[in-house]
């Protein structure tokens, strides 16, 4: 029996070590490429053990690239504003829906739920935002379409409110003369920090990693987020390599070098890796926090 147990432990560890390595290796490769000498990359390709190190890419980044830091600023701004706005709008909608005594709350919950089942897709949404609301090339385009709030989060939060906040607490607040807004702000939100943290984390990650809105709605480079800059650099390279035969070799040479590109990618990853240990526990909570029901 013990023998068998040991064998299981070993196998499990072994498999998990291999899988973990597979997850970490590409990140290591990216990082090593960013600190490799540009010429070494051209000769040896991307490798984990570069023949020559250089911090040139980071120096170049530090000196030259106003655009990169501008994009970084946009990403930070959009993530901060977007996450807060998202939590506010989501909880403001979820709280009344969690109140069984509110006339019409069932119908309203269905209106929220229906959005999970059926949607117009890209073309109509694009038309609404560009033709009706003229969101193209504004900061709002990075904040509002698709990202600001989704029905799933609303229903998740509603379930949390209605299952964890005792109605006696709300009643006594009302007897003490607290208005609904006061109750929401002073009692409901402070009692709901776990769900706010979980949804806030997913929203924050969503805003930080979003490139889709920038790709669809933004053509002005001043509004590019970090992800859009990365995306742009990659697609320029792809375009030029694809048309290499037509003598664009020179244009290709003027693009940021391989190491520089990898350095930008690294500074896009690092904040997430740094913040990860702090929000990791909310992942598990978020997945298990309670069923969503229509």
């Amino acid at each position, binding site marked *: 029996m013990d023998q*068998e*147990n040991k064998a*299981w*432990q070993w*196998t499990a560890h072994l*498999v*998990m*070590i291999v899988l*973990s390595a597979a*997850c*970490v290796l590409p990140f290591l*490769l*990216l990082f090593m490429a960013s600190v490799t000498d540009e010429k070494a*990359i*051209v000769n*040896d*390709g*991307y*490798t984990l053990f570069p023949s020559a190190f250089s911090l040139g890419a980071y120096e170049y980044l530090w000196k030259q690239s106003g655009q990169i830091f501008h994009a970084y600023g946009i990403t930070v701004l959009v993530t901060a504003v977007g996450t807060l706005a998202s939590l*506010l709008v*989501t909880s*403001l*909608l*979820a*709280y*009344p829906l969690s109140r069984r005594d509110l*006339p019409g709350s069932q119908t309203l919950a269905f*209106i929220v739920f229906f959005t999970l*089942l*059926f*949607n*117009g*897709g*890209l*073309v*109509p*949404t694009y*038309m*609404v935002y560009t*033709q009706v*609301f003229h969101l193209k090339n504004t900061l709002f385009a990075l904040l509002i379409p*698709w990202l600001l709030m989704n029905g799933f989060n609303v229903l998740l939060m509603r379930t949390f409110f209605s299952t964890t906040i005792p109605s006696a607490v709300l009643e006594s607040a009302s007897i003490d003369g607290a208005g609904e*807004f006061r109750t*929401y702000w002073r009692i409901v939100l402070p009692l709901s920090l776990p769900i706010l943290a979980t949804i806030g984390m997913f929203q924050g990650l969503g805003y*930080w*990693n979003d*490139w*889709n809105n920038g790709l669809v709605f933004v053509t002005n480079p001043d509004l590019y987020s970090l*992800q859009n800059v*990365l*995306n742009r650099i*990659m*697609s320029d390279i792809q375009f030029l390599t694809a048309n290499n035969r037509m003598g664009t070799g020179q244009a290709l040479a003027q693009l940021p070098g391989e190491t520089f590109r990898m350095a930008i990618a690294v500074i*896009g990853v690092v904040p997430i*890796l740094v913040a*990860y240990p702090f929000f*990791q526990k909310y*992942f*598990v909570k978020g997945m298990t926090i309670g069923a969503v*029901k229509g």
Partner: protein
Amino acid sequence: MTTTTLARRSKRRSLRRFLPLYLMLVPGLAYLAVNNYLPLFGLAIAFKDINYRKGIWNSDWIGFRNFEYLFKTSDAWLITRNTLLYNAAFIVLGLALAVAIAILLSEIRNRFASRLYQSIILLPFLISIILVSYLVYAMLSMDTGFLNKSVLPVLGLDPIDWYSEPKYWPFILTAVHLWKGAGYSCIVFLAAIVGIDPEYYEAAKLDGASKWMQIRKITMPMITPVVIMLTLLGIGRIFYSDFGLFYQVPMNSGALFETTNVIDTYVFRGLMQLGDIGMSSAAGFYQSLVGFVLVLVSNYVVRTINKENALF
């Protein structure tokens, strides 16, 4: 008479009482109206010949002509096939891998190690698909990629021009999808396994059941409901694909469309790059409608199996 006035008065009182709550609803509902409900009217675009000079809403109605064009092209079949096959592979392999990882993690006695593995395999889930496309590029680039420069020469193979060979991409995209998502989807199963009453295992041990037997006869049956539910949810979404995965990771390379073009990328290219709104909106409508039907059907199936697990 008196009862109606009383009722009216109490209604007014209840309105005053609930007014703040209704006010709270306004921003969220307004957002849903703009982001989710207004575009539903825009589905009508699929039945129009869009002409920007006339404006979207004043363009001519042309009935099903956009759909006729769409389904006459070979693209319609190709994107449907790719979308369905990729999603089917993702559902089957994704679930199998997630369940396997969850079982292994739950077996590991060392709590610290188990936590560490879990954190590491979640890493790929955290980064954007743009960064994933950088990582894949570092692996696959023709001249500088890890595979072409470091792996294939060791095996004595010639370098491969990955970004112009469609035949490799079903494997590459599936691998990338599993790499990115497995760590996240195993959390659900891990939670289900941790929730199993330990007494079952103790009883099995007393009866002399081997570890493998315990997994097959206790763990697997106990998590089957979760597996079934996630499978059906996956089938409900089988007409939608991860746009970023199919657009960014193959770098929008035209040579690869045969195996990388799915409905979402087709709609996007039609709208943003080719300016073919008719075709694009017809494909989008097709996706929304079939997707909706599939969600309803799969939910109906879940409901007949287990009412608790149904979405509605």
